[in-house]
């Protein structure tokens, strides 16, 4: 049985469907990238898988269980989401934010125990934030902020980690830094990853399989070599590009190409 099965999902906000008929499945420990143009429904798909929103149609199965029928706290112990940034009007410390990730293990009227603080310490250590734990989140750089979100998700001790464009607005150093962190978590702890990404080359280098979506529907779901083809990219992104192979990894690299003559 597959670890995660997304079956024929139709989902959106209010009465408006943003994604339609999306299906894919993932094995345990796999790193899956979701790529697609702006507004194609990547975030909506992640929100549906994490039960932030309920789908209009279709099911998401984790093992044999329907995610949208599970108790929220039980689900949050298995699936964690790191969103796009911390939007808080209050300046919490890094440690306070990461501690929030322990919520699904603490009862409604309960409070955190020694074990929870231990898990927070471990999550900070894994993400290299131990030194910054007392720093205010408003004083962090974008890369550090992204680490905090990942640390908080790790404090939930999930089997599946969902990430929404974790490398947006980061320079190439921070990009590889964050994705290497995610990959090491995947390899060492057997964490399954589903990650929405904009940068096709990073997606190609890091992901085992890619789900390409366009206008709310899945175009294809396959290994990067089969998805990142110039004809597919041209029709989905409406951009001219050349696809080559990276020398070291053998994975495709996408080079944008100007339509203007030189």
């Amino acid at each position, binding site marked *: 049985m597959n670890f995660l099965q997304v079956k024929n999902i139709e989902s959106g906000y209010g009465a408006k469907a943003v994604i339609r008929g999306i299906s894919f499945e993932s094995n345990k420990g796999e790193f899956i990238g979701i790529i697609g143009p702006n507004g194609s429904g990547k975030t909506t798909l992640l*929100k549906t898988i*994490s*039960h*932030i929103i309920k789908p209009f149609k279709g099911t998401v199965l984790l093992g044999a269980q329907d995610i949208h029928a599970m108790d*929220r*706290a*039980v*689900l*949050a*112990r298995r699936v*964690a*989401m790191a*969103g796009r940034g*911390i*939007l*808080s*009007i*209050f*300046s*919490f*410390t890094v440690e*306070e*934010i990461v501690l*929030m*990730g322990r*919520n*699904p293990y*603490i009862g*409604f*009227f309960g*409070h*955190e125990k020694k074990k929870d603080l231990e898990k927070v310490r471990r999550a900070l250590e894994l993400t290299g934030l131990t030194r910054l734990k007392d720093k205010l989140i*408003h004083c962090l750089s974008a890369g550090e902020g992204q680490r905090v979100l990942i640390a*908080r998700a790790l404090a*939930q001790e999930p089997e599946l980690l969902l990430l929404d464009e974790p490398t947006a607005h980061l320079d190439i150093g921070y990009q590889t830094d964050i994705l290497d962190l995610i990959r090491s978590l995947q390899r060492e702890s057997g964490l399954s990853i589903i990650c929405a990404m904009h940068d096709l080359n990073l997606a190609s280098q890091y992901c085992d399989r890619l789900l390409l979506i366009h206008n709310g529907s899945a175009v294809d779901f396959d290994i990067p070599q089969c998805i990142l083809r110039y004809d597919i990219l041209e029709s989905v992104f409406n951009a001219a590009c050349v696809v080559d192979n990276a020398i070291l990894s053998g994975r495709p690299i996408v080079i944008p190409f100007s339509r203007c003559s030189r």
Partner: protein
Amino acid sequence: MNADYARALALLVLTLIASVFLSLVMGSVTIPMGSLFSPGMKGILMLRIGRVLLAVSAGASLAVVGAILQGLLKNPLADPYILGISSGSGLGAVIAIMLGLNIPILGSLSIPLSAFAFGLCSIMFVYFLSKKGSRVGTEDLLLSGVIVTSMLSGVIMYIVSAAEREGLHSALWWLLGNTQVYDPRLLSAVLAISLSGIIISVILARHLNIMSIGEEEALSMGLDVEKTKIFFFIISSVMTASIVSVCGMIGFVGLIIPHIARRITGPDHRRLIPASALCGGIYLVLCDIAARRLAYPMELPIGVITAVCGGPFFILLLRRSKVPD
């Protein structure tokens, strides 16, 4: 609990105790500590004890509700009155005063009970106005709260403007807020509600941290967001309604005290709520002393003092530290 927080909390508790004693000594007439506890002064002492207890619980409750709503609604301008309780209670009280309402069994409790009932009705109205399906959006809550407040305030203005002289004075006095205790049953009810409200809020404060980050994030961390909202909504409504129906509209405490407390403890609501309660209690007790002393032999409405003293103090505080809080 770290040492800084423990020290700050201890300091606040000591300050509160000191201000309570100051308030017992400095009523409208100063009675030296030595003779305050003599048998002849028992009557005055009891009155002053009742009054200072009401001031402490009103200040503490309003500050705690302010802190709760600022976190829950993710809005630093939220205060206990923003969801329409005060105008509802105000209308209830003004109607009771104007009609000379004196329900036989209730007697002098008619006005506060009418205010309490109207306050809860108005907040329920606000709640159902903003409910869409099974969700209650925080922006919708704020918006309908503001709308209901201005509508009811209009009605209050009209009733007060059409009132006879005598009714006008008592209605205005009520609207401006005061801490006079005229019924021990009311005092004990307010004390019980404030104390239990504060205790429950401290226990649930963890959820406010998560809610203040954003509802979607809270959902992904497994928090039952709607249940949390309803819990805090009920706690803050009952606390605010009970204070407003006994003390009238004491403004500003619920808005500024949480900000001041946040400067002491940081934004973590598990620390912020106890600190807000203590700061609110201290502030209102001191304002109450000022209300009795400043224009002696007249007593000033305490709501005027809280606003007039609190405003400049708050601005000073904001200007002094330019770092983002």
